[in-house]
């Protein structure tokens, strides 16, 4: 099937950095494009900037319609005029992560080969880390003339970026909100990522990662990866509440299978997951998925400090607000508490809240009034302490 992806032809607001980036793996990636969106107005003192970091499959379209799907921004209920991250007060920046597929340099970006021809990086794209993502964001922040971010906010992999910001550029982060995240990617989470990747590798249309040459995408594998991952974002209670054991009869399949056919009926939860999978492949690149999940797997704040997670934060003056959700089993409260205690060890200014919710890991994207109040209150408090009216 012809699967020319409209995503490849889209243009996004971006800045280009010809000198590029020195990556953790030793490779110098140049030039680097950094795609981003901004909301609100930067104050004359350039002191009201809030950086929002997106999760694995998110992008910079945090509060305006997605150019491919037309759906509202992924955090449109949190970022906007009068909302908890209030764009009437704050200048909000969201950057597509390095390795992503929405305009920032990633596996789908073109590189110039030795013979002068151009082709996408594909699987040759260098291994990147969460810190590399943060360095790319830092290029943009400096380019904008912002010395210090009032706050860096993000959930899940976005929370990892928040922590890496605080560890790498401590003087430039006044307040930090790591949400539904962990100071390291656990063995269980690496395991889930590996299943996702193997699903992609197993797709006949994967073609060793050079699927663009055949004008195909490994849609099947990527969809399975998304379906599996999506289960980890929910909780048993949320699945039961949304779908229970309800069944829908699919007319086409029912007729084909006849009465008593093994798959004549479809549980609603199956239908939901298939929908999640099929819509995902239209907007996301398989090689980006591999690159970014690998970056998450490598994330371990204590790795360079003999396992001591507090060392990267020694002397920090950043105000932290750690938030977890009671039913999140992918990034459970126990891991957030490890982070809180690591920050206690260096006497950092830490708030730590577990929001009571049955919605699992995805709760940070959904309607949780206590969560909204916490974000709004913490940001207002930070603005007050920073001396911003």
């Amino acid at each position: 099937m012809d699967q020319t992806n409209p995503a490849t032809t889209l243009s996004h607001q971006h800045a280009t950095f010809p000198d590029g980036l020195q990556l953790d793996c030793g490779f110098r990636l140049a030039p680097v494009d950094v795609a981003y969106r901004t909301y609100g107005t930067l104050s004359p003192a350039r002191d009201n900037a809030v950086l929002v970091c997106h999760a694995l499959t998110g992008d910079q379209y945090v509060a305006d319609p997605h150019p491919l799907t037309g759906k509202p921004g992924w955090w449109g209920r949190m970022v906007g005029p009068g909302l908890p991250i209030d764009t009437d007060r704050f200048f909000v920046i969201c950057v597509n992560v390095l390795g992503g597929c929405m305009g920032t340099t990633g596996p789908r970006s073109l590189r110039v080969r030795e013979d002068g021809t151009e082709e996408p990086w594909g699987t040759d794209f260098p291994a990147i880390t969460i810190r590399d993502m943060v360095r790319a964001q830092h290029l943009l922040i400096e380019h904008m003339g912002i010395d210090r971010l009032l706050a860096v906010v993000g959930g899940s992999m976005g929370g990892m970026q928040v922590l890496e910001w605080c560890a790498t550029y401590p003087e430039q982060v006044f307040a930090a909100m790591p949400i539904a995240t962990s100071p390291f990617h656990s063995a269980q989470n690496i395991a889930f990522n590996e299943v996702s990747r193997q699903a992609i590798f197993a797709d006949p249309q994967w073609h060793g990662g050079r699927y663009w040459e055949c004008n195909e995408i490994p849609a099947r594998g990527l969809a399975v990866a998304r379906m599996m991952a999506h289960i980890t974002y929910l909780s048993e209670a949320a699945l039961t509440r949304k779908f229970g054991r309800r069944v829908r009869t699919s007319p086409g399949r029912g007729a084909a299978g006849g009465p008593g056919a093994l798959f004549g009926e479809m549980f609603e939860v199956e239908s939901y997951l298939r929908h999640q999978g099929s819509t995902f492949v239209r907007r996301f690149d398989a090689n980006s998925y591999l690159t970014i999940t690998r970056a998450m797997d490598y994330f371990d704040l204590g790795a360079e400090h003999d396992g001591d997670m507090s060392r990267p934060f020694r002397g920090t003056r950043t105000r932290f607000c750690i938030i977890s959700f009671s039913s999140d089993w992918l990034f459970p409260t126990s891991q957030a508490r490890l982070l809180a205690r690591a920050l206690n060890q260096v006497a950092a200014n830490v708030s730590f809240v577990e929001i009571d919710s049955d919605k699992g890991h995805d709760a940070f994207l959904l309607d949780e009034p206590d969560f909204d109040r916490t974000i709004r209150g913490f940001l207002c408090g930070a603005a007050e302490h920073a001396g911003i009216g």
Partner: protein
Amino acid sequence: MRLDQRLIAGMIRPRTRVLDVGSGDGALLDYLFRNSGCDARGIEIDMREVTRSVAHGLPVMHGDADHDLVHYPDNAFDYVVLQRTLQAVERPREVLRQMLRIGRYAIVSFPNFGHWRLRLQLLLRGRMPMTSVWSTPWYDTPNIHPCTILDFLTLCRDEGYVVQQWMAVDEDGERAPWRRSIRLANLFGEQALFLLRRKDTPRK
């Protein structure tokens, strides 16, 4: 803010670092930040109170005295405050040690089990006392380590803490007039309030 919290605030010098263990609704933290310019942070066990405090912009983390003080470095704070909680912790002596390890001063308030009404009830009725301060039956009470003012003084002596200031407070938080005699305070004071320091911390 409760009157006894005002008394506590009065013991804390401006622009110091304060950890309020059991910060509740955050009233003391808010007062210390706004009126004394303190770097005041809280630990609270009740998640609803934590959420409410953080939503007011106050730095509060979910945790408790028994399990979370141990993670802080030595001398991280000037004052560590424990309000009306000492009798409810698992290991009061260890909690006090931690408070005076991470803080130069400890401010501790607790309900006095030596109050005359409790003594009289036990003597006359032969049952566990029930008063407005000690208002839960023995099988339900969170107050697993009650003590009297004299008991607390003995512990401070054994542990080598210097009592820099003490006062008896009645239930409403009003300062009781038993300032001179600790024995009278132990009989008539409903709550006790202590400012302690380590022997090696100089008098302010």
